[in-house]
């Protein structure tokens, strides 16, 4: 089952490798990992997407919580939450028709063209992981994908639930 695990931890050197260690050492898989300082820059927020049953999820949260640098851990997927991921995708278009098709799909998916050169469009799209994958799939049909980069999922609980220090 897909899980979203969110971690609030000290923004200190080595913290991230300790978290990564919990996963690699115990054989838990990581589908995506997104990490950056919070509005309080002494803290970092991590969002981890993993596939795990209830027992493994309980162990992951407990083992991560056990790390000295970690303040809070929550599984966001067990309650209402919002989630977003960002993708930059660069496509090469050779014909007018292809270019029109790319533009049309950018509108449909509410993506945004960030950069244009003679042969390339670089497009930004935000949404759920599924939406990003669907967009990449469509782009693959109307143009050549040169490269793409995704941030991994970033997520917050809805309402007054929050990870606070």
């Amino acid at each position, binding site marked *: 089952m897909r899980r979203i695990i969110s971690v609030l*931890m*000290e923004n200190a*050197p*080595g913290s991230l*490798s*300790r978290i990564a*260690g919990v996963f690699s*050492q115990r054989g838990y898989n990581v589908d995506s990992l997104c990490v950056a300082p919070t509005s309080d820059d002494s803290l970092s927020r991590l969002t981890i997407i993993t596939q795990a049953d209830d*027992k493994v999820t*309980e*162990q992951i949260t*407990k*083992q991560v*919580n*056990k*790390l*000295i*640098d*970690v*303040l809070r851990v929550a599984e966001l997927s067990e309650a209402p939450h919002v989630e977003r991921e960002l993708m930059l995708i660069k496509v090469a278009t050779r014909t007018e028709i292809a270019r029109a098709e790319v533009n049309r799909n950018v509108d449909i998916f509410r993506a945004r063209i960030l950069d244009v050169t003679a042969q390339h469009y670089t497009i930004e799209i935000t949404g759920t992981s599924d939406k990003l994958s669907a967009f990449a799939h469509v782009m693959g049909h109307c143009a050549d994908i040169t490269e793409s980069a995704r941030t991994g999922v970033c997520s917050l609980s809805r309402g007054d639930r929050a990870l606070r*220090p």
Partner: protein
Amino acid sequence: MRMMSGAAMVVEALKEVGVSHVFGYPGGAVLDIYDALFAQDDVKHILVRHEQGAAHMADGYARATGRTGTVLVTSGPGATNTLTGIATAYMDSVPMVVLSGQVPSMHIGEDAFQETDMVGCSRPIVKHSFLVKKTTDIPMAIAKAYYIANTGRPGPVVVDLPKDLVNVQDKHPYVFPDDVTMRSYNPTVKGHSKQITKAVACMLSAKRPVIYVGGGAIIAEADGLVTQLAEKLNAPVTCTLMGLGAFSGVHEQFVGMLGMHGLLEANKSMHNADCIVALGARFDDRVTNNVDKFCPHADIIHVDIDPASISKILKAHIPVVGSVDVVCKQFLDRMEDVDTEAQKEKLKDWWAQINEWRARKCLDYKQGAEVIKPQRVIEAVYKHTKGDAYISSDVGQHQMFAALYYPFAKPRRWINSGGLGTMGFGLPAAMGVQFAFPDACSVVITGDGSIQMNIQELSTCLQYNLPIKVISLNNRALGMVRQWQDMNYKGRHSCSYMDSMPDFVKLAEAYGHIGIQVDKLDQLDEAMERCFAEKNRLVFMDILVDQNEHVYPMQIKYGAMDDIRLSKTERT
């Protein structure tokens, strides 16, 4: 504000946290710290012969006292040599701080001479680690390291100190922190009151309860409270290999060690229990046997300070996060009007059943006329130390014989590597014990294989006059390996025989100690007498024991707790 060098800060901070002994070995990256150590007498430095030995000494010191053990080593090989010792401490939750030198900050990452990423190498086997970045951070890093090592579930902490930060010339302001509390680290010690209520109800309604005590009870110094709880309930008590001594081995409610080499009555009680009260134990695979067949009738109450230990292996019906001492006190507070006599009446049938299992006398063995049985040696050690020694052990058959045939009446007397099973642990651990308690009787029970893994420390023993008693059960074999080969590999003894054994008596003498060899039963008592009469000398007893002896009882692989082999020919 006092100005001092980084090296002086290290020593000053160690004094501040109350360190009595540092076990270490010098080298380039820590020469400045060694220079600062030279200038004072408060912190005693013990020069070992191998850094692994230093880590095990600090470990033995910590297990015997409850105080944090301290190690000081140089960068690169000095640091990596401690890793087995760190892992050993980590697995058994032993408080330890390892101060490792590091190459100068500006050379980190350049593959400089004797550079290793110690923080990286040790990451999976430490509770926490610090790579110090500024000289003025040294006191805080050390203060936090000791705080983390010995609070919550204890464990080893590494403090990596780049050489440029500790140089003796540059002086910086020294401020030792008043407060080291961390917003991200607050171990829970008190059990949740709802869980306490549920647990007490479960214990009181049980008809076949068992109290299953692990190393956590010793760490929490909860032996007195565990005993009160057990007596209040009149419940049988079993201890894990790590928990021996948390409940007296000579108490009438003690049913012995449980698990792979546990007593029949202990494993039978567990298997038939309707309520298991796990106190600071972690349902290790060496305890549970096949988890799918584990204790089918029992409600499990699991008390542990580490939430991650609860429901890791087996789902606890009533989890209680907290320190064993505090939680036992909470249990007892709710049991004030429990009538122990009524409990006795209620558990009468249960005890009748247990006494039937006890009557099988599963520890009986056949001692012949001449060849010494290893069990007999342990009984002799018990007799000659009046059961009051600190027994450190190595790993193998001798370890299990010691655990089974030397009843421990007090906590912190049984010092062994239970979690990692580190051969070579025993001698240095016994040295750590002897440094902590110079007047105590510190014994190491070892084997001909294990002793050779850190035998160089016999030299350290001479330097510091440690009158340790080394009892080596010499079976000319890696006995435990051999036993498994007998049982599972049709007796094919692949590489478990030790050819060309050294002459241990001469070896002991070469190191400046007394060596005694015993190979006949009728010499055993007299030799033991001589050994323990030598109050001021280390004595190495090379005791030739039966090579073909197996450790029994032994659980049958993939079976339940009570599927047990009782001898080479009998099983349950």
